[in-house]
């Protein structure tokens, strides 16, 4: 009899000895180790699991039959495209922060506490931020400060403050600092006036100063007290409450940025042109009937919603933080469950990062999806960024089993604008050139001219690699 091989943990699942994620037959499962038994049982006996799942704050799971080597195996609710904090808009990160604190407050009320507070434990499921790490809870030890306080400040409060008070683009610091923005860096970048803000003064500035004082050397006490009478349960609740106020006090308004008012001021589509485009895209979506769609260059998600209305789970990627923000607010306002706006620079997409470059997946590693939509996008990649058409075709083919692509020719006023101040070094940037490039990777199933414009919409089926 051959020995039963233990499952291979997922590349991001190795820090917590309580258990790990693994993939089996295309399904994500979670192993729970014996050492987590007491906390797992408390999660249920306290009623915390039921409360958080009912409130859609914690991912639901079912227990699978026991297996050798594992105390328990869980089958969590499966989620769509995984996303990371450096791909979230301001309000998405803020909502994820508030959900984390809400969960912590609920846990405290039930005699438990979050033992970590990483932004990577939150995923957007059904239009809401949800905690996906069922093993994050531990029994509350009265008198012990929050073990995840530093992590919460680095993963949430510091980047939110930087985005709101310094520059929205600083969300990208999370891409470099995988365990959150170091607080000394955050306070160096924040305006001096943030010291006058009680929450930011305490949780970022004083926190950074305390870290500096006790960061090692002779100043550090040899034995840190694990518990203190000073840290009562009220003090714990007050700390969480203070963090909540600090997060709620931060705001960012998406005004005057690149694309946010695109549809309003765009002169290539009048109302009727836009309707024609929607009709053509809708017909192609009907033909493809996708379950999963990535809309690249989605703007505020108008076209993404054509796919969502047809029942697909859609990720609406865009380079502009204002568009992603506006799109997320729309999701929240309308209670939409199958549109996920995310920030992405397609000329430098999220790569694999973290340990061995595998902890957080690249965009491509999270695909392929049923349909990639690339509408009003190709000229930005080919002309603004000088990417040859065959490379664009190859990239799209790696992301989707089919592609709906709008070709925007040089006659279009948007392209004319891009070429106005530079030499035209793109002799093959035309329909024939595009079709030749696409032919290497796709079968062209349909090509439709959009009435009232000089643009063409293509329905492309990705050819399987020979």
């Amino acid at each position, binding site marked *: 009899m051959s020995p039963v091989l233990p499952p291979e943990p997922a590349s991001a699942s190795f820090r917590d000895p309580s258990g790990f994620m693994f993939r089996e037959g295309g399904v994500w499962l979670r192993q729970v180790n014996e050492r987590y038994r007491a906390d797992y049982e408390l999660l249920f006996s306290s009623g915390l699991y039921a409360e958080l799942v009912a409130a859609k704050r914690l991912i639901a799971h079912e227990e699978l039959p026991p297996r050798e080597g594992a105390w328990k195996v869980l089958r969590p609710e499966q989620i769509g495209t995984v996303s990371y904090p450096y791909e979230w808009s301001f309000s998405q990160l803020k909502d994820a922060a508030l959900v984390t604190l809400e969960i912590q407050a609920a846990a405290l009320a039930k005699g438990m506490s979050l033992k970590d507070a990483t932004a990577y434990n939150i995923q957007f499921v059904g239009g809401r931020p949800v905690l996906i790490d069922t093993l994050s809870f531990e029994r509350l030890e009265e008198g012990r400060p929050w073990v995840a306080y530093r992590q919460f400040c680095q993963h949430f409060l510091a980047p939110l403050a930087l985005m709101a008070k310094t520059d929205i683009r600083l969300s990208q610091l999370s891409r470099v600092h995988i365990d959150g923005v170091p607080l000394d860096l955050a306070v160096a970048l924040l305006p001096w006036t943030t010291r006058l803000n009680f929450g930011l003064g305490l949780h970022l500035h004083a926190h950074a100063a305390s870290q500096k004082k006790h960061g090692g050397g002779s100043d550090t006490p040899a034995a840190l007290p*694990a518990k*203190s009478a000073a840290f009562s349960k009220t003090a714990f609740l007050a700390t969480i409450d203070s963090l909540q106020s600090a997060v709620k006090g931060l705001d960012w308004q998406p005004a005057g940025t690149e694309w946010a008012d695109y549809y309003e001021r765009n002169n290539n589509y009048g109302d009727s042109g836009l309707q024609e485009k929607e009709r053509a895209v809708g017909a192609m979506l009907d033909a493809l009937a996708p379950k999963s769609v990535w809309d690249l260059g989605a703007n505020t998600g108008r076209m993404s919603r054509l796919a969502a209305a047809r029942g697909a789970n859609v990720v609406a990627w865009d380079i502009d933080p204002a568009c992603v923000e506006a799109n997320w607010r729309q999701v929240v306002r309308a209670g939409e469950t199958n549109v996920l706006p995310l920030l992405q620079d397609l000329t430098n997409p999220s790569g694999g990062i973290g340990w061995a470059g595998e902890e957080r997946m690249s965009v491509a590693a999270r695909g392929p999806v049923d349909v990639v939509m690339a509408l009003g996008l190709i000229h930005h990649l080919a002309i603004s960024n000088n990417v040859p058409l065959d490379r664009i075709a190859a990239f799209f083919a790696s992301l989707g089993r089919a592609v709906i692509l709008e070709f925007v020719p040089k006659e279009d006023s948007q392209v004319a604008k891009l070429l106005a101040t530079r030499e035209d070094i793109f002799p093959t940037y035309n329909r024939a050139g595009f079709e030749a490039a696409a032919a290497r990777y796709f079968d062209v199933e349909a090509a439709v001219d959009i009435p009232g414009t000089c643009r063409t919409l293509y329905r492309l089926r990705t050819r399987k690699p020979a």
Partner: protein
Amino acid sequence: MAPFAFVLSRASAAISRSPRTLVVLLAVLFSPHAHAYLDPGTGSYILQLAAAGILASMFTIRMYWTKVKDWFRSFGKAKPEIAEKAAAEKSATGNNDTPRGPGESQAG
């Protein structure tokens, strides 16, 4: 609130200069280890301990203040209900003097 952050950082500095102050001030219970798989960071721990007292006091005061406000609000709410009842009775008796809700009285 800048002085507050300043006081806090001074306090934690004082604690660090003399670990005994920490023991006395915070009535510390020593334990061999905290069962954390994360390194919480010494500075982050000490800051939470240093801020615990003031945050807890502010929190408690606010909770009581909310209760007091709610108590007063419950008074305020009772009155319009009475007014509405009276108005309903008025209209039921065929009086044409159109009653206004409490929120409308200032509306131009």
